């Protein structure tokens, strides 16, 4: 099984996501509505981390050097979740509460629609419906029908500051109030709910969850990792991580990997929750780990990228970049792309961490990048999204 298992959620996605997406700019006002069909493709980036294992590994290889193809101003900042790429369409939420659509090839903004106070994470798309996390008003999730340009449903269970997980037509997310929800993605009806018992410290869930087989994995502010049965919500295991889990969770080779604010990268057995290893990154980990093969990569706030073997936690290499890292990296073939708060996007060779490419951007990178169809998408806190393609400047 191992790493190849990461394909499961994608297969699920294609089974249920065969519908067409049609998007265009509504005349005269800001909005999104059907114009022409967009067909989900195998190489899309349809959810945070591309798959439900959240390893953020592209289908093809994007080989540096890269050059800027386009840049678009989306008028507000972005949360930590990456943009999505579906066929020729880039979809992203912003912190003004809008869902924005951009043409992947030209960078032209197709349209946007205001759906809530802020969209802090990646949307997830199934069929013609985009599901967006919301925060700021107590609203949790909104389902927006891209074909019809209308809201399908909204649910209010408290602020959500993560990217939701979509699996088998169920949506999974946690709230800042310390609850985990499973909703039916068609109706928004609650399937199950978990609440942190005796939550006197007002702990919340902010780390983007991951899934493997029948389990979904969450981490809370207080430093506990949880595994729930995806179907029933029964708690399978809970494991202290040793520090608040703010970065997203990844699953590689049957190991649940999470970083903590205390600077520990942790590997747990996915089925039992037994801690297999702990790796000291030496600085807070706000960036979700990503991976490929038996290696996971995590960037720390001290600007160091760590490559760690996910089976035993052995450090393989580490490379110091010029600036703190708090956005997840992206794996593309032999390369690892990392953004920093010092406004650089950097390409590293995945095998030894040597830097092979670097490009200045106009703002801090606090959002995970996405890549598909030979294009790397980087959002900055100057409210812009930049697209890179292979080739020299």
């Amino acid at each position, binding site marked *: 099984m191992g790493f190849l298992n990461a394909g499961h959620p994608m297969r699920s996605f294609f089974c249920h996501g065969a519908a067409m997406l049609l998007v265009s700019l509504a005349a005269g006002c800001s909005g999104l509505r059907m114009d022409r069909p967009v067909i989900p493709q195998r190489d899309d980036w349809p959810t945070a981390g591309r798959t439900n294992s959240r390893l953020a590994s592209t289908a093809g290889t994007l080989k540096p050097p890269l050059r800027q193809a386009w840049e678009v101003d989306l008028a507000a900042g972005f949360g930590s979740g990456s943009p999505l790429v579906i066929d020729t369409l880039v979809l992203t939420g912003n912190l003004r509460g809008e869902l924005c659509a951009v043409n992947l090839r030209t960078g032209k903004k197709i349209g946007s629609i205001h759906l809530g*106070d802020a969209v802090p994470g990646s949307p997830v798309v199934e069929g013609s419906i985009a599901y967006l996390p919301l925060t700021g008003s107590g609203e949790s999730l909104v389902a927006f029908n891209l074909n019809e340009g209308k809201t399908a449903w909204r649910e209010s269970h408290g602020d959500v500051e993560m990217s939701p997980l979509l699996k088998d037509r169920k949506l999974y997310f946690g709230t800042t109030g310390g609850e985990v929800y499973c909703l039916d993605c068609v109706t928004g009806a609650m399937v199950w709910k978990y609440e942190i018992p005796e939550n006197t410290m007002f702990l919340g869930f902010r780390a983007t969850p991951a899934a493997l087989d029948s389990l979904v994995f969450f981490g809370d502010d207080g430093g506990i990792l949880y595994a729930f049965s995806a179907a029933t919500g029964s708690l399978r295991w809970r494991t202290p991580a040793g520090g608040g889990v703010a970065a997203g969770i990844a699953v590689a080779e049957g190991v649940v990997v999470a970083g903590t604010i205390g600077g520990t990268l942790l590997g747990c057995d996915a089925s039992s929750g037994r801690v297999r290893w702990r790796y000291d990154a030496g600085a*807070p980990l706000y960036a979700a780990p990503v991976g490929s093969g038996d290696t996971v990569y995590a960037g720390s706030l*001290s600007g160091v990228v760590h490559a760690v073997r996910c089976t035993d936690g052995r450090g393989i290499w580490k490379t110091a970049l010029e600036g703190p890292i708090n956005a997840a990296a992206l794996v593309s073939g032999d390369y690892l792309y990392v953004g920093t708060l010092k406004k650089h996007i950097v390409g590293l060779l995945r095998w030894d961490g040597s830097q092979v490419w670097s490009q200045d951007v106009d703002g801090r990178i606090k959002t995970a990048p996405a890549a598909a169809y030979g294009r790397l998408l980087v959002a900055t806190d100057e409210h812009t999204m930049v697209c890179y393609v292979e080739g020299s400047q």
Partner: protein
Amino acid sequence: MQYTDFEWHVLKTDHFDIYYYPEMKDLAERGASFAEESYSVLEAKFNHTLNTRVPLIFYSSHLHFEQTNTTGGFIPEGIGGFFEFLKGRVVIPSDGSTAQFRHVIRHELVHVFMTSKVNRMLSDHRKTSDREPPLWFTEGLAEYWSTAWDAQAEMVMRDAVLNGTAVGLDDMDRIYGSFQMYKEGQNALQFLSSKYGEQKILLLMENLWKETSFSDIFKLTIGKNYREFDEEWLYALKKRYYPLMASTDAPSRAARTLAREGFNSKPVAFEHDSLREVYFIGNRTGYSGIYRRSLDSENKEDQGRVVLEGERTDELEAFHLMRGRIDVSRDGILAFVTKSGENDALHLYDTRQEELGQSFQWPSIVSMGSVSWSPDGKRIAFSAIDKGGNSDLYMYDTDRGDLTRLTDDYYDDRDPAWSPDGRVIAFSSDRTPFGSKGVYNLFLYTVATGGIDYLTYGPESTESPAWSKDGSSLAFTSEAGGVQNIWMMPMGPAAPGTLRTARQITRFTTSAFDPAWTSAGELVFSAFEKFSFQLRMIRNVRAVYDTSSIGRGFDLAMKEKPWEAKTVAGRASLQRLRYRGEYSLDIAESAISTDPVFGTAGGAFVSLSDLLGNEQYYFLLYNTAESQSEFLSSFNIAISRISLGQRTNYAYGIYRFAGRRYDLTDRDEFFYERVFGGYLALSYPITMFERIETSVSLSNSTKEVDTQIEDRKALLLSNSISFVHDNSLWGPSGPLDGTRFNLTLAFTSDIQYSNVNYFSVIADYRHYLRLARRSALATRLWLFYNNGKESRRFVMGGSWDLRGYPRWSIRGEKLWLVSNELRFPFLDQLSFQFPFGGLGFWGFRGALFFDAGSAWDDRYTVTLGSMGGGLRLNLGGFLVLRYDVGKRIENNFTQIQPDWFQQFFFGWDF
């Protein structure tokens, strides 16, 4: 006031532009290292980076810092640095302590990071940038992330909790801006962090966009609003501090009171002619000064009397309340330090003759701290800070006039205390390995050899050594036990490296400072209680020592090498440049106004200044056209340059004004005037309290008056010179003590057409006679005199001058006014508690007044007057509301108004 000509340089590090002058190059490099170190720490704590380089302006002493032009107004001694939002400047002085310098740098950089993070977060969410955390949070966080919870913080919180003055977050406005608020904020965040996790502090900032009320943000971040949090936090504080009552005492319960009102510190006992007295620094009257009190007086109301008062003359410009101890020689000569012009001065005062004697200043010394006489009364040891910011020990021989520097390094050496045998000087210094954390230990300086030996050694600060009169014991303060108390160490001969022991003398809940011995073996000292520093005394110190069960030894054999300061010197990325003023925008605003008489006018105002605030430009442009055809001729333009970089400030500029005017001071009520010209103004501060101002202007004026057939043309040359004096002490609604006066002579003449030719004399004298601490009798005398062709009228009437008469209703080219006002406290607090919350007002002041005056042109007409009473309320420290009620005295003081007049207005008392 810019006494010193600073030659500014810039040190460029990775993230900072550091502004310094060459004398403090080493200090600047240490500060640069601290700034870069703080940057790394705060980058991780805030999960944020700064987009721009941060300008850090360093001064090597507080006296230099007080000369900065980066902010307007007076900088009090308690201000340790500031972050100025407009240009993102951080301005920080050193006080000789490297640890404190590092603390203030970190503190101010917390502000920089927080401001940047909050602004970025609001921009990301496209929210307006008018939301910011409350002051208790910003200052509490700056303290929490820049310093450990130290003895001073512990003292303040113990005092607040045990005296019932600790307030919750919900009531922080009651202690707004105070040091207690800083420490309560720090403690609240420390508690929040320990209970809910430090991540919640970051979330409080990141959630700021969600709500307008910070209490609501608290609720959605930690699940509790202010009130609910306060219940937890204040309960935890009580649980922590109430048990202390079993083993410690409030100073007032365990020591005799000598002075309790105001701030009292740095006592020294002196006995002569069978009189036993204590001299100390205090500010009970509002002015800092030296006070004297009998040690034997049992009168509890005896707070001592003022011997010397600061803030009144340039010689004794200001006493340093916290910095330096004073001392009396065996001959009764009191040595003390004050600010005196550019630098501090050492003064001698003959206590027997009650005469101020010699004063000393040295070019190499900027500020001074504690002083100590040699036993023979010929030499004075003192601590001082040089232009480089190093705090060292010096010795001055009063007979020979020689100044000798005893130590010369970057360690903070202070509190010298000459031993009664004259052989050694005890002092405190941060030169142990613990010193980098701000810990001081005691040392002995051998006068004959210059050798320095350890006296205490440990991680708890020991300071303020004081020899008993026979030299057998040394009293000092120690932070062992969490707060500062007085300890005593026998001072018999000790072999090098032996264990010295000390025992605790006071066991106060809060803290004691600056012990000083009497010849009867008593200790006088300053103690903190109810948020004030009171002067206290304990007797039978030897007996207390003998029975004290708390002691500790100082194993001097364990001592390690002194700490070494890190600097950024040698880093490849460094650049050192001379400062070149680059101007950036301060204010740019446009305005448009519509008036039923004058129509619509619009314009813009722009000001620029350099980073140090020394050079400023002002541009004004507006148009007053009332019809399209007047547009081009109705431009009003003014350009001014103001230079504050030297002691003599100057300003010059050119202007062109045109438009219809209504001049209520003149007999020509409506007129149209075009005027263009230029001006030059100079201001020279003779002392802190006196200055001379002069100006000259030349302008071409054309005036069209509706009632006149021809325009009045004039080429006006105006000159004026003023002498200004002000040493007033202000209360909540106006001055309470001191004197202010302004004498101005001016002459304006039309040098081309002779249409205008008049001179002006303006005399304004105000005296404030202090009757009690918060009461005063204020007197004001005005004599304004204009005479000549087209001389302007003065105006009077209303709440600010001749009360009871309509505002500006009394006009004339000549004017006199006498005002007398009794100012007194009326109501200290007025609170309302509603079901939805509370509302409170503080500091209502009362006034009884009598005014008389008149204004006339050619012939004196009538004398007018008024009398009555009023209330004043200061809102927020910048706005005073005034309500007066009374009766006019009319018809040359022959008739009293039958009804009552009432006036409600705003403004400070004269």
